[in-house]
């Protein structure tokens, strides 16, 4: 038996025993310390113990299979999953925690010719890659604050899709603060939409005012109700802060009953100078994990999928977001980048995420720059020892795992580790053990802070003695 050539075997400490997790073999199983020591001897020390039980034999055979190759090789052709269009960085709301600089962004709108050039490029790529769909995602600011740009890109996309034998597929992330006419346009022409709503009026308006002293809840709720009449995938995004974390289960239940979305997405507040000034803080990671996990279960009982995106267990990935997946996101000024954050944010992390530019009627993309971004997204030293390496994949490259960031876990890591372990246990049908984790302060502390989950580190691990 040869040693494992990579870190794809992780031992996660639980109140009773351990969770063996091989994300790139899509395998998770609960084991005791003795069983893990056997695996350590086989896969790390290179021993050949005899007399294994049939169950251990089967597990060893499965773990001896090569893991899924998740990172594209250096010469893999550029393959953008979608085109992102930031129609404007301006926004018609004044959210207290906005991390996109919308309040300080100029009211610059993408020229219609830039949108057309980008759509034409993506249609050409989709045809070259023998895709079935032409995928275009709209971001902001608030993308529908520049409705003529959206309309142009949608109508151009539909024409180009038909000419190229593709099906058009449009998605948008939006604040939902606009007229019924705008909502109906989205309903008629879009396939999926993410609307931000942080709870009932008091908490939503505290987080997401239209202007100082003026709430946005009523109009946003009307928009969501209206979108719900159309045939599109409706996702509601909830930003969680200290203001709403304790009532997360009730909020998710209420959202589910009121709007019947396809998905509810829970994300924690990313601190900004604006959020600090407004007195808004991210939730405590343990409190978020406890309430978040209960909220996810509550939604499941209503037949609705709720997720914390860093703890999604749909399969292994090497990057959390569009960055590193060859995505092209075009800004109002014609810059093409892998990230939708403003350039100054990634520049201050010494990251170069620019991969091209719209020049007149053409979008020029530098495939070498795309491969460089792939490498940056796949190489995250903080994540090397963490069992969430291939599922959370390090979160945001700019804000969580930028090159040179501290290797110690931060609160994002802690809540992600707790929620990921509980998601795995739930998926294995072991909800009782997940409950055991989330009601045991010591177990949560051990799991959240465990510095090295790799099997090769197993003999030095504490925990899992129960």
């Amino acid at each position: 038996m040869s040693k494992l050539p990579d870190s794809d075997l992780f031992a996660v400490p639980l109140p009773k025993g351990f969770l063996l997790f091989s994300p790139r073999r899509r395998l998770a199983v609960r084991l005791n310390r003795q069983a893990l020591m056997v695996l350590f001897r086989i896969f790390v020390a290179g021993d050949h113990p005899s007399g294994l039980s049939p169950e251990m034999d089967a597990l060893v055979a499965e773990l001896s299979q090569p893991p899924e190759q998740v990172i594209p090789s250096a010469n893999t052709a550029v393959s953008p999953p979608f085109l992102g269009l930031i129609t404007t960085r301006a926004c018609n709301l004044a959210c207290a925690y906005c991390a996109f600089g919308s309040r300080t962004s100029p009211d610059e709108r993408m020229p219609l010719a830039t949108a057309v050039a980008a759509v034409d490029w993506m249609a050409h790529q989709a045809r070259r890659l023998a895709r079935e769909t032409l995928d275009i995602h709209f971001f902001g600011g608030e993308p529908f604050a520049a409705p003529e740009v959206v309309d142009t890109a949608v109508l151009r996309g539909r024409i180009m899709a038909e000419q190229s034998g593709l099906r058009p597929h449009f998605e948008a992330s939006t604040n939902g603060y606009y007229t019924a006419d705008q909502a109906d346009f989205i309903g008629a022409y879009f396939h999926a939409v993410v609307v931000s709503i942080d709870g009932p009026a008091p908490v939503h308006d505290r987080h997401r005012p239209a202007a100082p002293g003026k709430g946005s809840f009523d109009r946003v709720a009307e928009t969501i109700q209206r979108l719900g009449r159309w045939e599109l995938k409706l996702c509601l995004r909830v930003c969680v802060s200290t203001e709403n974390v304790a009532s997360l289960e009730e909020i998710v239940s209420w959202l589910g009953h009121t709007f019947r979305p396809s998905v509810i997405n829970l994300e924690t507040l990313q601190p900004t100078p604006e959020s600090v000034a407004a007195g808004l803080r991210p939730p405590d990671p343990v409190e978020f994990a406890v309430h978040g996990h209960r909220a996810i279960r509550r939604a499941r009982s209503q037949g609705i999928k709720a997720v914390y995106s860093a703890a999604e267990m749909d399969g292994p990935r090497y990057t959390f977001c569009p960055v590193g997946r060859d995505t092209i996101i075009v800004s109002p000024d014609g810059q093409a980048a892998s990230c939708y954050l403003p350039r100054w944010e990634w520049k201050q992390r010494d990251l170069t995420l620019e991969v091209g530019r719209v020049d007149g009627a053409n979008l020029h993309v530098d495939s070498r720059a795309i491969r460089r971004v792939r490498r940056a997204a796949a190489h995250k030293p903080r994540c090397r020892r963490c069992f969430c390496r291939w599922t959370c994949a390090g979160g945001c490259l700019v804000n969580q795992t930028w090159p040179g960031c501290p290797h110690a876990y931060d609160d994002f890591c802690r809540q992600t580790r707790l929620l990921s372990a509980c998601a795995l246990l739930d998926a294995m049908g072991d909800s009782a053990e997940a409950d055991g984790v989330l009601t045991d302060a010591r177990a949560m502390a051990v799991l959240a802070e465990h510095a090295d989950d790799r099997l090769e580190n197993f003999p030095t691990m504490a925990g899992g003695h129960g």
Partner: protein
Amino acid sequence: MVEPAAPGRIIQYECASTTTWAVDDRGVIVVDGSTGAIRRIPHPEAAVWALIQRPYAWGRVMNILSAATGLDGAAASSLLQRCLAEWTAAGLIRMTTKDALESIAHG
């Protein structure tokens, strides 16, 4: 879609009350509820259909239509005029003249 008419007045195009429509990959499907007739509007005419449902002024419609279809201003204008005339005659859309201030007040 609206366009200026006599001073203080605007012309507004909108779906007839008996018309229903749906978007599909190849254009727009329009149903005339008064006759039950089903009609497919292909691209690029489907872009015109989309834009007349919007509360845009004539100039804005022309800019979007020209950009989306790749037609120059004259060709885009011709396409728009032809569609409006044809669909009005077919009873799928109707043209009304309104007081400009009233139109603004109603968004």
